[in-house]
């Protein structure tokens, strides 16, 4: 190995242009990869980025306007989600409950007619799930409702908004909160609730 073996040469202009284009292309490629990764990671950590409508709620088989029922008619959350104070699940109301009003109310509305068809056929509605925690999480609505309503001295139906956002003002229900474990744990810490794993996982 002799010193001076290596003679660096100045690049020509042609080479410089070639390298410039190459680096631009790779920069673009990197940008695309980073963008995709960001989307995936943000989706992993919380809600998808609000691009291309990824943050919107899903279309339901029957477009049920919470605005109409909650804001305009003043129905309480617990009027339909009856189990929320006593059970683990808030429960979606059965078609029969809808029909207690819609047997007469809402004539002529296309969505109500759909509902009546379903009710007449004796079927159930396949609502699309908006909020979902994985199977290994034991979320219990009643415990949360009772805790917050007692702590803040508010009505049960006012507690719902803590996690679900102001559903009453949503035409299409969307996920308001991340509902990832960090979200749960932080809230539990803030409220001195147990953070023992076995509180939710068993």
């Amino acid at each position, binding site marked *: *190995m*002799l*010193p*001076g*073996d*290596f003679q660096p040469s100045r690049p020509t202009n042609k080479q410089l242009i070639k390298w410039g284009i190459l680096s631009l292309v790779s920069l673009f490629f990197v940008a695309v990869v980073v963008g995709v990764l960001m989307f995936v990671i943000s989706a992993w*950590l919380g809600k998808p980025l609000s691009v291309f409508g990824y943050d919107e709620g899903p279309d339901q088989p029957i477009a049920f306007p919470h605005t109409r029922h909650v804001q305009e008619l003043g129905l309480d959350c617990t009027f339909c989600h009856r189990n929320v104070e006593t059970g683990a699940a808030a429960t979606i109301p059965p078609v029969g409950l809808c029909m207690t009003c819609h047997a007469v109310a809402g004539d002529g509305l296309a969505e109500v007619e759909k509902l009546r068809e379903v009710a007449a056929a004796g079927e159930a509605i396949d609502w699309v799930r908006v909020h979902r925690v994985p199977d290994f999480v034991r979320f219990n609505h009643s415990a949360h409702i009772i805790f917050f309503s007692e702590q803040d001295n508010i009505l049960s139906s006012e507690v719902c908004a803590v996690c679900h956002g102001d559903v009453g003002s949503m035409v299409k229900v969307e996920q308001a909160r991340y509902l*990832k*474990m*960090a979200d749960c*744990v932080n809230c539990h810490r803030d409220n001195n609730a147990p*953070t023992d*794993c076995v509180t939710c996982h068993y």
Partner: protein
Amino acid sequence: MQEHVQLNSKEVNDILLKDVLGMPKWWLPAVLFFLVVFLAGGAAFGYMLNKGVGVTGLNRPVMWGFFMVNFVFWIGISHAGIMISAILRLTQAEWRRPLTRAAEVLTVFSLTSALMAAPLVHVGRPWRAALWVFPYDFERGVWPNVRSAFVWDPSAVMTYLTASTLFVIIALLPDLAIIRDRTTGTAHKVYSLLCLGWRGTPRQWKLQAVAGILLSALVLPVFVSVHSIVSWDFAVQVGVEGWHSTIFAPYFIIGAIHSGVSAVATVMVLMVWLYKWQKILTPDHLDAIGRLLIIVATIWFFAFFLEWVFALYTLEDPELALRELQVFKHPWMALFIVFLITAYFFPVPMWMFKKVRRNMFWMFVTTISVNIGMWLERFLIIVLGLARRQAFTFDWGTYHPSMIEILMVIATFAWVMFGMLVFAKVFPLIPLFDIKEGMVGGPHKIKIGRKEIPASIHE
């Protein structure tokens, strides 16, 4: 050295770069063969990923089997690199020179093998192993459990892998520049990039030498810790009496050096046979390794003996049951005898003879034998530790590896062979600069007692 053939720089270059710049006829078929075997192991892993750990022979209570044995084995082999490069470098043993790179490369590939075996392959849900290996999980406030030896395992192994890779790279720089100068086209560009602008200036030489020595010193604690931590995987288990022993860390480390140095000797013989490097790798080197091995093997055997003393001294039922299982129960008895013979009683007396130490064939046989024995040693510790007859004789179990496991174990061997061969094709497996450096200093000898041994030079 006595039989050292004096070569000049050009001859060294020609000999060592012959197969980097050219390609021996057997190379491609051999590499393809090992690749196929490795891919077969990969396919076995894919099958296991699809079906679950059930495809192995693991059961209750033998929850660790071939994968864990293989993990410990490869970690053991990896200790060759540091032993040869760092310790011998720091102790200025001259004969290490042609062996350092092969040992370090062997370290790198055996560590990747080990990593494949333990965190990746053997867990129930490999896709979640990141939770264990990387503490990414900031948001939930649930961190990896630092009390677990398993958390320290990957970090120790990764540190060791990083250090070994750096070792290889730093030692490679001057050689890469030589190859750069002898290649054209794309190869030239690639080597130019890889050699990081090495020009062989005195400053660069100085930095390279300092980096080498520094790394040697810094890596020594890692060297000790890696296998200590691996031994803690076993030693901290109160539930498995045979493993719960304070001798385990030194016992594992010395065992690792035993198997690692043997593996280097095996690789050395293979290099001579395959690449015809007998002018550089002389019987002198083998002789030196052989002497080192006698010492290492005997210390290892002492540790092994101590472990037995510790176990038997207490006369506790579970320990006695394990030893009974190892020594008197078929088929473990046969394995135990094979292990003892191959790991110590066959090779060490052989190495006592100078003729054997200087004979390529016999050194190959004896060092291979050591590694067969050391593999069995890990098997006998891990599997029998779990399969022992314990208080709950109702749950006493046994273990038979499945084809999937055997295939994956073979694949790790193929992976190391494949890696070494590919490396040897792309980079010189013997450091050219080191050989030349040794030549500059000339064959120094110093007298210790009545013996003359090769001395080191100052770097």
